[in-house]
């Protein structure tokens, strides 16, 4: 890895090391037989299924990123290739949990209808419109993708931690710990990239602020079923404790370079049921 990047924040994330140590198939480490005597509740299974769908939507997400200048950054694409690989196996681990609980795999059953809310329109725009606006946006769009990637990691981590607590299942908790370990490096990469790019470019800040005022969470939610999204919002961010969790994410967003309390609270607001 050449080190032409910013080193203010310490050692730059080592993409090559990441690609070399990618973690694949987890099936041997999942304690699946424990579910036979202690099956998960319907609610926990629903959360597992929805998280599985989110994790396996990498190719749809990649498509949206690659029609923009993000595809020109070979370091970022090298990361994304391995990121997609690791997420594939995270989704597979969640499928294994579903199967051990007598359920079909997450993608084996039809998803319900997507939401048609006006607020989602921006995220629903297809690859053509994304490609057209990307011509104007140029390289700073990469900062937007890195920042939304980071916030998405914060949101899904919150969801996994919630699921781990609610399920009261040591077997699921162990699987979730494994998943969070894998995802920790994804968050670290996005964190590095987002902070560096936002600090360096006012244009990146401007584009990111606009995006965050309209973004739908988690990434890819617009393609998911309305009923699953409502479930997720209630399950992770419902009630006063849930609102606190959303507010915490908002605070972290507000603290990113070039962001502020208004952006943070908008993101938090959009997580709520």
């Amino acid at each position, binding site marked *: *890895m*050449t080190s*032409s990047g910013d080193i203010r924040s310490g050692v730059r994330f080592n*993409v*090559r090391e990441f*690609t070399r140590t*990618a973690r694949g*198939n987890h099936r041997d480490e999942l304690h699946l037989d424990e579910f036979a005597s202690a099956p998960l509740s319907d609610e926990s299974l629903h959360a597992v299924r929805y998280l599985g769908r989110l994790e*396996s939507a*990498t*190719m*749809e997400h*990649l*498509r949206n990123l*690659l*029609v923009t200048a993000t*595809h*020109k*950054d*070979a*370091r970022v*694409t*090298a990361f*994304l*290739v*391995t990121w*997609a*690989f690791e997420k*594939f196996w995270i989704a597979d681990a969640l499928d294994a949990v579903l199967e051990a609980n007598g359920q079909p795999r997450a*993608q084996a059953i039809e998803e319900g209808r997507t939401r048609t809310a006006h607020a989602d329109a921006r995220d629903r725009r*297809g*690859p*053509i419109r994304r*490609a*057209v606006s*990307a*011509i104007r946006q140029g390289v700073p769009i990469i900062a937007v993708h890195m920042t939304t990637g980071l916030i998405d990691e914060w949101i899904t981590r919150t969801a996994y931690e919630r699921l781990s607590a609610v399920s009261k299942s040591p077997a699921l908790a162990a699987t979730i710990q494994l998943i969070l370990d894998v995802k920790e490096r994804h968050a670290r990469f996005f964190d590095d990239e987002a902070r560096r790019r936002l600090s360096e470019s006012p244009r990146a800040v401007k584009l990111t602020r606009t995006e965050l005022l309209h973004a739908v969470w988690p990434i890819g939610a617009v393609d998911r079923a309305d009923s699953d999204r409502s479930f997720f919002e209630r399950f992770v961010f419902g009630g006063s404790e849930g609102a606190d969790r959303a507010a915490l994410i908002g605070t972290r967003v507000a603290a990113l370079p070039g962001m502020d309390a208004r952006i943070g609270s908008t993101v938090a607001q959009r997580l709520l049921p």
Partner: protein
Amino acid sequence: MAFDVDKYTATSVSVNWDDLDLEKFRTEPLNETSLRTLRYMTDVEYHTVCYTRDLLTTPSHKEADMSAFMTMWNREEFWHGEALATVLGIHGVTVDFDELKANRLKLGWKDRLDPIKQSVLGKIVGNDFVAVHMAWGAANEWSAIQAYNRMAELEQDPVLAELLKRIAKQEARHVAFYTSQARDRLAKSKKAQVIARLALGKFWAPVGSSIMERSEVVHVMNHLMSGPEGRKAARKIDAAISGLPGLEGLKIVEDSLDKLGIAA
């Protein structure tokens, strides 16, 4: 025969070269011609993920099997780039992510418009267009196998040959996926056959043509695909492509060699 995606994902690995004595190139280096060709191959492999973008702008990404394949395929191709970059590195040629970036930034309007064009086409003909992409992908993967085989033949170097053989073995699985997809989808639709024939006949060019300078394309084609043996390899690719439903008689590789002025 149907392609078993579950089996493919379960057995997909990054190509391994730990046991190969690549260090020997320090005392027995490859020649300039080969290094230039290897550099081209490395860039093409690293760029694979960019082609994913075109494939994904069609409805194909909605299919779980397709997604699963693309995930592993991208990673295998990335590792082909890493393997070849290691060989180049031993020869003092550095191919780093940041350098590739510079290459990609050179791509002009043509590149920017490509995903838009692809999406529009994808919308117009819907699932039929996936068939075209699959046939296109098959042609590219067949080309990769022939290119690596030719390189191994020409170099006569046992260490390089073994590395290229391992890469080509993975390319063969890619071929299997793309052909089984193309065959099924083309067989189902006369319209898809017509469009595939038109697209490949009119627009196909040797892998890498859209990202590399023309001089580099000519160099690689001259190196690997010229002369009687080169033509024989080209005809093998053409024979495979023209074996797909509706593509009988196409000879896109030979035609493109003629267009580039590569001697038979």
